[in-house]
């Protein structure tokens, strides 16, 4: 699942991942992400931090609670690239912290690593 209020970013990432056979859903806000996750049960969530309303820091623990005992990998994909931002994302419950702009190769490599681990 891709969570980003920038429609271009989430749609283009979804289209690329679909080309590689991944099943993808997108959400433009934290609240919508929770609705999508409830139906879709994502294995992996890539989420922006600066979302309208519920931000990524609030979304991560909410997704963890929703997943219960099921494994879900949470990755923050954000322009907030300082070490303090990374630390805050990890403290909020994200497993990974990726920095925008993200290249297609970096995205695919990350996704493949996670799929291999799953």
């Amino acid at each position: 699942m891709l969570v980003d209020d920038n429609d271009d970013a989430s749609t283009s990432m979804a289209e690329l991942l679909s080309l590689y056979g991944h099943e993808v859903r997108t959400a433009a806000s934290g609240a919508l992400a929770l609705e999508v996750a409830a139906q879709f049960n994502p294995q992996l969530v890539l989420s922006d931090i600066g979302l309208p309303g519920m931000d990524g820091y609030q979304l991560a623990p909410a997704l963890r609670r929703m997943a219960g005992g099921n494994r879900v990998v949470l990755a923050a994909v954000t322009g907030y690239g300082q070490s303090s931002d990374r630390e805050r994302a990890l403290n909020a419950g994200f497993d990974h912290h990726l920095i925008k702009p993200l290249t297609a190769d970096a995205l695919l490599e990350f996704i493949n690593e996670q799929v291999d681990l799953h």
Partner: protein
Amino acid sequence: MLPTDDSAGPESEITRLRAMLAHAEEVREIEKLQLARELHNDFGSALTALAMRLAILSRQSADAPGAADQWTKANAILATLAQTARRIQSDLRPGALDVVGLKLALQEYLTDFSERHAIDASISLPEQEPPLAREHAVALFRMFQQLLANVRLHASARQVRVALMLEPDGRSLCLSVADDGMGFAAAAYDLDRSHGLRHIAERAAFLGGSMQIDSAAGRGTSVRVVLPIASSNITTDSTKSAAP
């Protein structure tokens, strides 16, 4: 400027100058941080989208179905990037303030905000340009930008109403930004939780003014910033819609 006291001695003057310097430094740092975040967010997202579109194109033959659509989308992202670059340039230096004054600068910025974020906006302005010192006008414009950023990021609002008006005492100018969003319990709110609001409150106080928040959960938020002006020759208000 800080309020001055003619009877104050050299030590209090040194203290005042130190406070001014510290405040100016803090303002510069906060503005740099905001710019860095905007560059990362807006450019980061658009560049990510462009990278994905080009990657999709590179994995398709030139005449594959959908290739033309991908090029169109990539070009649209480039246009957005160019627009964002112009906006950041404008944010860095609100040139409209120098050319058309505070009234039109506020109106232009609000119109652009309304179009970009699909939030209805209206603005009420005094008929005459407020006789505000330039440093106060720049500060008020920066506070206005921060308040709209708060509306966009936190309020989930459908509408924002802006008013610039002379206070009844005729010696100060009030900027109010009110939204119909989710609001929050203002009475119990800790300003330290919001860098933006705390910064506005401190900046207003530094310039001899004040900031007040009126908000409650589910009832929107209204923020008033009051700054002292040079004179009081402002007449009646006129209301305009910021959206085209």
